[in-house]
């Protein structure tokens, strides 16, 4: 575990750079996390996606399946990758302060 300053807070990150305490998340933290995923400027579209993920997580305690995310935000899958080049799981979920999605197998 590593402690880093993000958005003015000292936050604990795991080795993939996900924040460990979802409750510590705020917009300044999100903007700082976005920079670690190659997103220098959070646009309105970025926020739409991040806020959707955030609200879904607060309601269901998990990340939505990708198709559901696309359907409910209206973004096509390739648009999600244009917004977050590292993809919805590694990129968008990290910026939204969600716990790390489970692995490959």
């Amino acid at each position: 575990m590593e402690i880093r300053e993000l958005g003015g807070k000292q936050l604990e990150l795991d080795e993939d750079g996900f924040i460990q305490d979802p409750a510590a998340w705020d917009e300044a933290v999100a903007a700082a996390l976005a920079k670690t995923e190659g997103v220098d400027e959070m646009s309105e579209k970025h926020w739409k996606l991040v806020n959707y993920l955030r609200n879904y997580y607060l309601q269901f305690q998990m990340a939505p399946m990708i198709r559901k995310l696309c359907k409910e935000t209206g973004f096509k899958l390739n648009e999600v990758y244009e917004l977050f080049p590292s993809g919805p799981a590694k990129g968008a979920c990290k910026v939204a302060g969600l716990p790390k999605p489970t692995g490959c197998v």
Partner: protein
Amino acid sequence: MEPSNTPLLDELEEGQWPSFVAQLKQAAEKSPAAADLLRQVERSYADNTGHWKRGGIVGVRGYGGGVVGRYSSLPEEFPGVKEFHTMRINEPAGFFYTTEKLRQLCDVWDQYGSGLLNLHGSTGDIILLGTTTENLQPCFDALTEVGFDLGGSGSALRTISCCVGQARCEYACIDTMDITYDLTMHFQSDIHRPSFPYKFKIKCSGCPNDCAAASARSDLAIIGVWRDAIQVDPQAVRQYVADGLNIIDQVVRRCPTWAVEWDAQTQELKINDADCTHCMHCINQMPKALRVGKQQGATLLVGGKAPVVKGAQIGSVLVPFIEMQPPYTEFKELLVKIIDWWAENGKNRERIGELIDRLGMAAFLQAIGRQPCAQMVNAPRANPYLFWKSEEVQQNG
């Protein structure tokens, strides 16, 4: 002589077989990561437990998969494997390489990774074992420069693989390598950008010998087949018998559907092709005398999988015969329908075969617009599929 610091692993070098330990030791001479890997594996044997952390999400720009994150749970002790990610690389169809291409691949991996690799993983990919987060993007960039791309991982269409097909085999009824290449190109986004409930594997075998193990190891198996008669060269059959083949014991009695007859008097072989289930046994026994038929295409099987969440399943026939000629439009349209139904109805981490079990073959066939047919039955005359909807039962009493 100094005492070995890997006494447990040394045991695995005994015997006359190749040993992964010997390979690891060799790699350890050049790569500090491989040296720490060796030490960590020894430690795992001593502790009787693995020392990798659960999961890990890493990747390269524009891709949602293709790299599997691996972290040591003992990074202070084994700093060389603190980050030891796996890269899955899409193999060429049929596993054909020039030695030059393999050298280029290995040069890149010596530069950016541990120098260790698997040829090939069970999905077919080239598995590059062990690199750091920092090296992922430059390694990927260098790999694309020499013509390689990442394969699939996670809840995605996995790298498609096939047998050597018409490139090396006279039994191939379909061009497995072209099918694999074409589908890989057509469904690129589904390979690199996971959006399915779980993994989806497609494998393609040229004939029912199924060298790609498609029926057991893929959610959708494409298996080359013929629908006319097995081609028989009567003279060559007689030659086999003259050369000592016990045709009754080795061929006739082993035909699962009793479709083969041998008349010892007239030295004539008769095959009742209507009863043939294309098991390949007679053809394998007498390859010089018997050949696959001339009307060639594929049978599609659905639902095969290895045990991860639920148990293993073998694929069952979905389409008894489909033409497989470029651009494979009928196949592609069918695949999209299958994926759509699964994506709409599947739970997280539910394979297509499990979903068909849960919601029923009838619901699946209706969703993809296929009629049930006799060839879908697992064992002839044993378990017919009967599909009645409840309103039909009421209508017809």
